[in-house]
């Protein structure tokens, strides 16, 4: 039994919406890795904790999850800057294993904090203004997902603009390429790292509040989003924003289609299968340059 074209179109559209959100989720991870060379293993757990925080605030003041980001984004920037200063900076330039250990440690702290305060129950925001459907021919557009996709793409393109067209972005790119020479140009590289790490974490708060307009928070989404975003940036091959967007959309669409054609359980393994196959043929990623 083959699904109807309408169902396929619906699935494709949902996949595209999801893909844009994935690109926003992966953006902070990509930025931190690209500039600082650090794989932040706690990245997904920030999305998880952010989601719980959104649930808590949105339900207690009865507002839309997307609006909660006005509070959580600056808060997460400060948290990110503090974690950089207290935890990352002391091990910066040390062996990769130590850097991995500290970010894994931060991830565990976040997970257990969530378990302690929110227990292992899945939570969803009760009232969201965006929970309505717009019929368009054979497909129904979920307003929450549409807004999520639009905002995500605006932010991803905005960060691209920041990196390529502004002084701050130029400073970040110069530091990413050669921190010692950047210092010789008068750049305080520590300030750059603080900004980048803070921004990387702040972006997870935004992704989390968009996720909560239609998704659920549970303590394990941290691990799955963490892996998923890592797969996305490895697939994109650190080829900048275009690579990130393309690989996010591929993963989102593939996941959504398998959910429709096969089962939700199998769809969870799809990103990793795509990942294995692609890296088998193109180890530098889809859009990466071979070094």
């Amino acid at each position, binding site marked *: 039994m083959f699904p109807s074209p309408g169902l396929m179109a619906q699935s494709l559209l949902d996949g595209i919406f999801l893909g844009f959100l994935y690109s926003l989720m992966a953006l902070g991870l990509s930025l931190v890795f690209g500039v600082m060379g650090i794989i932040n293993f706690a990245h997904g757990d920030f999305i998880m904790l952010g989601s719980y925080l959104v649930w808590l605030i949105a339900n207690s003041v009865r507002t839309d999850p997307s609006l909660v980001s006005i509070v959580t984004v600056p808060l997460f920037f400060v948290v990110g800057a503090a974690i950089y200063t207290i935890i990352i900076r002391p091990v910066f330039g040390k062996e990769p294993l130590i850097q991995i250990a500290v970010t894994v440690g931060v991830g565990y702290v976040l997970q257990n904090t969530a378990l302690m305060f929110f227990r292992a129950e899945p939570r969803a925001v009760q009232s969201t203004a965006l929970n309505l459907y717009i019929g368009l021919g054979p497909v129904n557009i979920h307003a929450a997902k549409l807004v999520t996709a639009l905002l995500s793409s605006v932010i991803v393109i905005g960060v691209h603009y920041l990196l390529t067209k502004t*002084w701050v972005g*130029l*400073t970040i*790119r*110069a530091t990413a*390429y*050669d921190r*010692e*020479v*950047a*210092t*010789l*140009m*008068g*750049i*305080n*590289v520590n300030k750059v790292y603080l900004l980048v790490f803070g921004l990387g974490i702040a972006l997870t708060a935004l992704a989390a509040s968009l996720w909560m307009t239609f998704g659920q928070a549970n303590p394990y989404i941290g691990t799955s989003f963490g892996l998923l975003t890592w797969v996305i940036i490895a697939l994109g091959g650190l080829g900048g924003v275009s690579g990130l967007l393309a690989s996010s959309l591929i993963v989102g669409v593939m996941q959504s289609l398998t959910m429709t054609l096969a089962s939700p359980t199998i769809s969870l393994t799809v990103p990793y299968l795509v990942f294995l196959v692609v890296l088998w043929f193109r180890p530098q990623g889809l859009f990466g340059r071979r070094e």
Partner: protein
Amino acid sequence: MSNALLELVNIEAGYGVFRVLHNVSFKVCEGEVVALVGPNGAGKTTALKTVMGLTSLFKGDIKFNGSKINNVPPYERVKQGIVLVPEGRGIFAPLTVLENLYVGAYNEEARRRLSESLEMVFSIFPKLKERKNQIAGTLSGGESQMLAIGRALMSRPRILLLDEPSLGLAPKIVSELFEIFKKLNEEWKTTLLLVEQHVKNSLEISHRAYVMESGRIVLEGESSEVLKDERLRKAYLII
């Protein structure tokens, strides 16, 4: 000589716990070209890095413009007007030529004078203007060295430190480069501290010189005098 712009007094410095420089003192006055020459491993690069604050300083003082800068972080020293063109040029390869120059003008004061500085750099290095939108990684060796110097000039330095600028360049380009140093000093009034292996060229364009060996200053004086030194002439085969 007039009062010193940059002065190192009895410096002991190195990396980690290793001392490379032993009791090194030298000075550079405003408007001067000073050459720092010596064999490989003599500590010339370390001396420049020490001026920038990139080494461990164990003893002695670094003074700039009359005040002690021992504890001033490297990026602040750049702001005060000390700029190093590092060995190997340190071009930001993925950035365009123009973007590289912009990074050079990072500090506020330099940013205010951006267009004026850009015009100056393009008039000294017309090649850079032709290639301003090119990715810097695609430049030839000579062009990247010019970009590295141009980028340093963008920050409007009071003193420019050059570490082996002629390394790996063709002889014709090397003489062009030395002409540019002369011009920078005479026309643009830039103070230069030049570390070089082309000893003869360096001594010919500089006012004063210091010769380093095994982390110590072994000879110093007016460049014309240093050039006459028998030992030096033998060591560097200047005939």
